[in-house]
């Protein structure tokens, strides 16, 4: 029994303080990303989420360069980016791929510069890895509280305007005609999106933050019929993928003779991707079944 446990959970997994921090941060980030992600996917704002990830990268690398930890940089740049997007109008942003792409490029260019300057000045070793691919194992334990507070703010914002947000997703005109707070709902949602992307950037990296945002949500939307169902399922997928990824990355230290851990971000993203593919199976099977029986059941309804 003990051998089996050691085989699954590498030696020292439960004792390691880094693992404790990673598991806590991972859970918060996964839940916030999953909840925000469900609304992001339904509202068709995945591209905005990705854009915010790249803007956050510039903020995080800038923060490192001036001697701060990356988190304030991720959060600050994310919120500023969300504000600009809200001013331009996220709905219109979707139709403006070119302009958005150029802005993203510029943001990543800034990251490249900041990371280069940091590396050459020698003050921030491993900064590139940390910003672009996350630092869930190397985050200071003191950061957990900050992550939890920012996560609570994001979830609280969405909870406050969840219904107007849904109504506006279906039809902005119905929502406006009902006097629903459409503008405030959009603003609070962008705040939640910025916070969620920033937290995700901290955990699995700015480049990969969209994976945790969109992946579990998209998989959940494939297999659930209601919004609450999608939210719960997305949270479960996100947390499971994150924790499993942490475990595999920890164990991977013993896999190879050189004793070098593989990046945790890879495992998390790979598990999410596999889950997304698997979630498509029931729907595909249903579609195949409907094609066969569809005509018959339509006749039944008509009769």
């Amino acid at each position: 029994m003990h051998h089996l446990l050691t085989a699954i959970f590498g030696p020292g997994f439960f004792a390691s303080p880094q693992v404790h921090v990673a598991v806590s941060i991972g859970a918060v980030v996964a839940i916030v990303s999953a909840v925000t992600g469900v609304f992001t996917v339904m509202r068709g704002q995945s591209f905005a989420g990705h854009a915010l990830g790249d803007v956050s990268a510039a903020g995080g690398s800038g923060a490192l360069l001036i001697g701060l930890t990356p988190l304030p940089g991720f959060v600050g740049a994310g919120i500023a980016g969300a504000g600009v997007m809200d001013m331009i109008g996220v709905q219109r942003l979707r139709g403006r791929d070119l302009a958005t792409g150029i802005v993203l490029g510029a943001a990543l260019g800034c990251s490249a510069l900041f990371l280069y300057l940091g590396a050459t000045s020698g003050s921030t070793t491993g900064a590139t890895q940390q910003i672009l691919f996350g630092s869930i194992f190397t985050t200071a334990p003191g950061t957990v509280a900050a992550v939890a507070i920012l996560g609570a703010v994001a979830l609280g914002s969405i909870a406050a305007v969840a219904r107007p947000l849904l109504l506006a997703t279906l039809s902005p005109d119905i929502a406006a005609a009902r006097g629903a707070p459409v503008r405030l709902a959009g603003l609070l949602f962008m705040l939640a999106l910025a916070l969620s992307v920033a937290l995700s950037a901290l955990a699995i990296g700015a480049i990969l933050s969209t994976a945790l945002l969109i992946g579990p949500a998209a998989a959940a939307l494939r297999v659930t019929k209601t919004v609450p169902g999608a939210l719960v399922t997305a949270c479960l997928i996100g947390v499971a993928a994150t924790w499993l990824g942490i475990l595999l990355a920890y164990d991977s230290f013993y896999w190879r003779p050189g004793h070098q851990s593989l990046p945790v971000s890879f495992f998390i993203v790979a598990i999410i991707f596999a889950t997304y593919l698997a979630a498509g199976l029931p729907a595909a099977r249903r579609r195949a079944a409907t094609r066969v029986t569809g005509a018959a059941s339509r006749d039944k309804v008509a009769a």
Partner: protein
Amino acid sequence: MTDHTRAAVTPETLAVDQVSVALAGRQVLNNVSFTVHAGEFTGLIGPNGAGKTTLLRVILGLQKPDRGRVEILGRPRSPRNQPVGYVPQKVLLDPDMPMRAKDLVALGLDGNRYGLRLPSRDRSEAVRAMLHAVDADRFADARVGNLSGGEQQRVLIAHALISRPRLLLLDEPLANLDLRSGQEVIALLARIAREQQIAVLLSAHEMNPLLPVMDHVVYLADGRAASGPTDQIVTTEVLTRLYGHHVDVLHVHGRVLVVAGPAGDETASAHKAAAAGPAAGAG
């Protein structure tokens, strides 16, 4: 205005008074006036681009008129708590939307409120009764994105009605429906208008499907409106004048059909197709 004596007794559910709107330099609505009464079915008819959607948006308060006023139940409309239900032309109901018919209807009850809500028996009972009223019980648990066009219209009508509005606005609800589904939706709306004493204002570019149930017509062309009881507007003389080309109003076996006159005027042909539509469309 011919309805003055009546208006003095009960206020009109909706009064549109000399409304003008210019959008991007174009006069979309020009001095439009008409009234809509409780329990009546009013058709807002006009070719594409005549300003129907703009007019509905003015009534909803989504578009500010340059001149003129809109009163609902005798009071100027305000953005909040208006007893108006709305079924827009475009609603995002794709199959990926995790929403069942009953969830969408429930959102019509309190989708404008802050915070989360807990499940309640009263709510689900109200939703169930509403779905029954629009004859949508059997797909209450189906994803809205997987329903047919006619079924989606029923659910959207239930969504609009559950907040108990006195005025129901529908923007081109027949646009994407086949003939039979369209007739079912219209019969449903006529029944609801009568039974619940709701004023229904429905926009359409084709008049024929509405003729069996339409009490009033508001005809909109080039931003100007002509309105009146259906039997006064739907005559060969009036429609020919409104459409700007010859239109026949036929009475066949107790049914009324609007048929475009013989072709010849090239410029009017688009108008003709849009306004009169195929004669087969009448029911």
